[in-house]
């Protein structure tokens, strides 16, 4: 089966070639796939989205959506995709219902026709349907934006950082909705800076400085983590981190939540452990831990 989204050696620069935003990116997303583009702010995610949604022209390379070329067939693409930009982009002075109605008619559709697609989301918005969109909470705004992007039953859905600035509960709900949409056969490309959301995608691509570091399923990425990972904790974190930098057996160490994650060269764990105990760090914890997506991302960054 042909890929639904194809990026082939795409390069995009800004400021007359001075600033490289997308650096020879190639990607393929299969029909019906929930694909995540994972990377920090400024990695080039939005540029890729805009190239795919025909809003920007790439400097070089080819791209297609649903078999349509993003340059030649831009009009056709604009009819069949749903796009939710990273920034809240609805009319703040129109009510929830008016926004939805408006975007439905823009796409020659109406709310009834595809109500089944948005029902789960819209029931949560229903109590506020007469409220102006600008007065909604962050999570509600994103739900409304998703509804507006879905109301014409797009074949491919582009969601650029849909959960940025949204509370953890709403984020979780949002991802549950995406999973249900995927069941409807909609291909979804979603970007996020949150590593914990990566595991919810079918396949992910790590992106940094405009380069794709790795494309794989989340499980496979976790499996491929090469080293043993240790979680180290102490009440004196600063001292701990300084110390870890001086131990030659440490391959890498970085802050991870309230602890430090470190990979250690083969056979080195005993030595490291001893050094830490000798240093007399207060309430030391030293244990192996399972790598998470973020660990893998950092791993690829160092390569």
């Amino acid at each position, binding site marked *: 089966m042909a890929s639904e989204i194809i990026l082939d050696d795409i390069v995009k620069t800004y400021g007359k070639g001075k600033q490289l935003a997308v650096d020879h990116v190639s990607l393929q997303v299969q029909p019906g796939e929930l694909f995540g583009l994972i990377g920090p702010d400024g990695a080039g995610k939005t540029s890729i989205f805009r190239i795919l949604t025909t809003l*920007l022209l790439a400097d070089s390379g080819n791209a297609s959506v649903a078999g349509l070329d993003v340059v030649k067939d831009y009009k056709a693409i604009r009819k069949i995709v749903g796009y939710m930009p990273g920034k809240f982009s*609805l009319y703040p002075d129109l009510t929830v219902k008016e926004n939805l109605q408006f975007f439905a008619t823009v796409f020659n559709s109406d709310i009834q026709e595809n109500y089944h697609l948005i029902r789960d989301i819209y029931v949560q918005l229903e109590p506020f349907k007469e409220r102006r969109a600008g007065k909604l909470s962050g999570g509600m705004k994103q739900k409304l934006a998703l509804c507006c992007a879905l109301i014409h039953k797009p074949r491919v859905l582009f969601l650029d950082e849909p959960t940025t600035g949204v509370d953890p509960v709403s984020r979780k709900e949002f991802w549950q909705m995406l999973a249900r949409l995927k069941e409807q056969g909609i291909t979804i490309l979603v970007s996020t800076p949150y590593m914990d959301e990566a595991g919810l995608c079918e396949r992910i691509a790590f992106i940094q400085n405009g380069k794709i570091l790795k494309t794989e399923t989340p499980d496979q990425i976790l499996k491929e983590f090469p080293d043993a990972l240790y979680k180290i904790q102490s009440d004196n974190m600063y001292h701990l981190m300084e110390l870890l930098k001086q131990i030659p057996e440490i391959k890498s160490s970085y802050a991870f939540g309230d602890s430090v994650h470190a990979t250690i060269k083969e056979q080195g764990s005993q030595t490291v452990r001893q050094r830490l105990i000798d240093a007399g760090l207060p309430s030391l914890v030293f244990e192996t831990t399972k790598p998470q997506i973020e660990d893998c991302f950092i791993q690829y960054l160092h390569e």
Partner: protein
Amino acid sequence: MKQFWSFIRKEFLHVFRDRKTLIILFGMPVVQILIFGFALTNEIKNSRIMVLDAAHDIQSSRLISKIQASRYFQVTQIVHNEAEIQEGFRGGNVNIAIVFPLNFGHDLESGERPQLQVLADASDPNLATALTNYVSNITADYQREIQKINTPIPTIVPEIKMMYNPQLKGAPNFVPGVMALVLLLVCVMMTAVSIVREKETGTMEILLVSPFKPILVILSKTIPYLFVSLINVGSILLLSVLVLDLPIHGSLLLLLLESTLFIITCLILGIFISVKTQTMQAAMLISLMGMLLPTMLFSGFMFPIENMPKPLQIISNIIPSKWFYIIVKSIMIKGLGWEAIWKETLYLLGIAVFFFALGMKNFKIRLA
């Protein structure tokens, strides 16, 4: 078509939900007409005049009462020496002074070339010139009166008739001006800002990724402002007829059609600005600097174009308000018809077509 209607509906919602702006939009013409009509006026009434009458004879006192009787002057002070005149000017409470020499009446009666000194505060040169002219006219008038009685020498009496505006009212001049100004402001600035707002809020990004034609996005934006502007034309005309006693001499239909053409020209300029700018601030600044200021300067409303140096006169030709100002004056005040304004109308049409083409050419179907 259904899409287009829903778009226009949305635009009306935007305009009517923004209450503050709406009040300004509808209130501005009313306030401007009232301010220009009653507060700001360059008509000279009741100027304070000071009289030093050294002659104290029949001729001088008759001339003084003639001056007093005119509506231009109000004799505030009778003084007795030069020093008091100086003081009066320095105090700033008189605009003009007249000095009658000792034997004014005698000279006049014996044909000795009587003299009359007129001093004016020329720190406002226009006012000073106007006032001294009035004084000269009154004295000339007076002289003719007595000549008629004394000697039957034939004199040339210019019969002056102020065409179209016999009472030299200010209103005929500023009503067309305010119309041009208000329509320009509403149409250019509001349209420019409202389209750029879609770019700034990011909604343009979504609209571009839709089957809807971008050009229609923009056209639909202009409809509410066309509507608002037509209401403004109505309110300005009503006010000028009812409050300022300025009747519409020509065809009302023609006036409304020409106003619509001007409104459309302004909307097109607004579109052009919005196509070229990225932020609301820039759009607003360009509308103000590029449209409002030239309108004030070059429409002929505030400063007569005939007096400007040639290059500025040429520049004034690309200002749509200039043509509209001429058109409104011709229809409303002179009561002229189509045959008098077709040239100006063509100019307006030309400007509209030119900027429409330019705007369309520059319209971006993508971001950046």
